[in-house]
């Protein structure tokens, strides 16, 4: 069965019919062209293979990672688009935060290489089978993965840098002459009005 027609009603019906082949899926339409699918992490590769092979889902738009420390889970969202059906499928899975390892989908979707590398760098989640888990953006960073919720940027900045007043001599000289950043707008205006 290959889906090629593109009128909204029969697309949604045939897409849901196709998805019945995978047990344990929960589907929900979030709009005319947005289908949300919740499934277990083990069944995701089967879903992607089915969507790519039989429904024309050749475009992996993105993989998003959301950190849920209270449930001790990472949520991975695979955004898939079919140029034939014009329906976006969002596949949501949850994986345990510890040890934080999941399978790469690079074999099916080459754009996954970038997103998996990015998630590894920002969340510390490892993807087995991904072609490159090396650093890309944070080359000089050896701290914890910064996008995790427990990483507090502000606290890190406060610990890392020493604060000091910026009072260079040259500024003091300018201020002594009545200039510099101490000059108020009403002082420099001719009419004296603020």
């Amino acid at each position, binding site marked *: 069965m290959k889906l090629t027609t593109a009128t909204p009603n029969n697309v949604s019906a045939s897409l849901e019919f196709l998805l019945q082949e995978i047990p344990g899926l929960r589907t929900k339409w979030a709009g005319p062209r947005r289908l949300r699918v919740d499934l277990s992490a083990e069944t995701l590769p089967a879903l992607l293979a089915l969507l790519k092979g039989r429904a024309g889902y050749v475009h992996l*738009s993105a993989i*998003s990672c959301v950190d849920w420390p209270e449930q001790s889970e990472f949520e991975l*969202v695979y955004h898939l688009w079919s140029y034939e059906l*014009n329906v976006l499928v969002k596949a949501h899975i949850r994986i345990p935060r510890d040890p934080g390892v999941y399978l790469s989908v690079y074999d099916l979707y080459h*754009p996954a*290489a970038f997103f998996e590398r990015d998630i590894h760098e920002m969340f510390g989640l490892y993807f087995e089978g991904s072609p490159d888990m090396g650093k890309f*953006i944070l080359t000089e960073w050896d701290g914890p993965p910064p996008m995790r919720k427990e990483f507090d*940027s*502000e606290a890190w900045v406060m610990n890392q840098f020493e604060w000091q007043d910026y009072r260079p001599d040259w500024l003091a000289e300018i201020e002594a002459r009545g200039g510099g950043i101490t000059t108020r707008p009403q002082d420099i205006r001719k009419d004296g009005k603020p």
Partner: protein
Amino acid sequence: MRPENYPSVSQPPSNEFELFYGPNHPGIEGNYALKVRVHGDEVTSARADGGYLHRGFEKLMEGRLWIQNIALVPRICVPDPVPMEVCYSLAVEELGGIEVPLRAQWIRVMQLELSRIAAHLFFFGGHAATTGMYTPMFWGITDRDLILDLFEELSGGRVYHIYNIPGGVRRDLPPGYLERVSKTLDYLESRLPDYDNLLFTNKVFVHRATGIGAMTQEQALDWGVTGPNLRATGLAFDVRRDDPYLVYDQLDFDIPVEAAGDAWARSLVRRSELKESLRILRQVVAKLPHIDGAIRAPIPNPLAWNLPAGDVYTRVESSKGELAYYVVSNGGDKPYRVHVRGPSAMHAVQVLEHLATGARIEDVAQIMFSLDACPPEVDR
């Protein structure tokens, strides 16, 4: 930048060299680098190296109110900031169940198309410059300035407008604004034959760009290419038409397509898109005076605005390709998670690595620019 991360490469005597292409002015709209190995003039391998513009926007957004983030998002892509504002606003509006007034939607379309023209003018100037022709660069930047004038009049900002906010737009159009837009459109339309004479029918440019950085449609789909780069391989897909947002379904425009998939085809697609954007803008200018009403939907006090829990994935067609925001709310006054999917994340990394490998060293800059990648979108 720590020197120990960039060790010198020792190797037995050979004709192979490793070159660090970038991060300053490597033929791309920002700081970005490509490590290439060259054998003679031929590139034998290429590795993209990003992170020079990383400012941690996604993390910063988690610590700011929904409305505050609108000041951050345009900075994710400097040459084409309006789609960033609109895409983020669309996400917040969808989460909050806000319906944007019709007038604001039309004004947004006008802003988006003006921004697209500005970005394309920037693009073809830069593309020509990578082949050694600087006159198109000056012309492109000069004409882009006319659009920045329009932005400045509307929002006070030439590059970052922060004009599209969740709920609508900040201000209504000033008196006589549409006439001035119309005048600029007349001028830009009159310039198209000049651009053709200068660049698009210029034998030197045609010869330099033909066959450079070519990919097939199959490769493009495999590598996640979107936008004008995908259309240059023959696939007529445009988010504006096929996954419409705002009022694009009420507008009449074509989707230019080229078959060759090389730098020349990518350039031609964008040249045709200039014309289509002008066509859309003419329709908007004609339509806007007849649409009255509010420019902003009433939103709650933005300082104490809790959006319902949920998640949303919004997409728009930016001048670079498919731009998307994945926004998650946990019911709080700040986003729980924002993921920015910039089209350049694909174009500037794996697509560039594939296309640069096997190219000649003098064509690498042109390949980079012909993909019209925006490094801050990669780094975020």
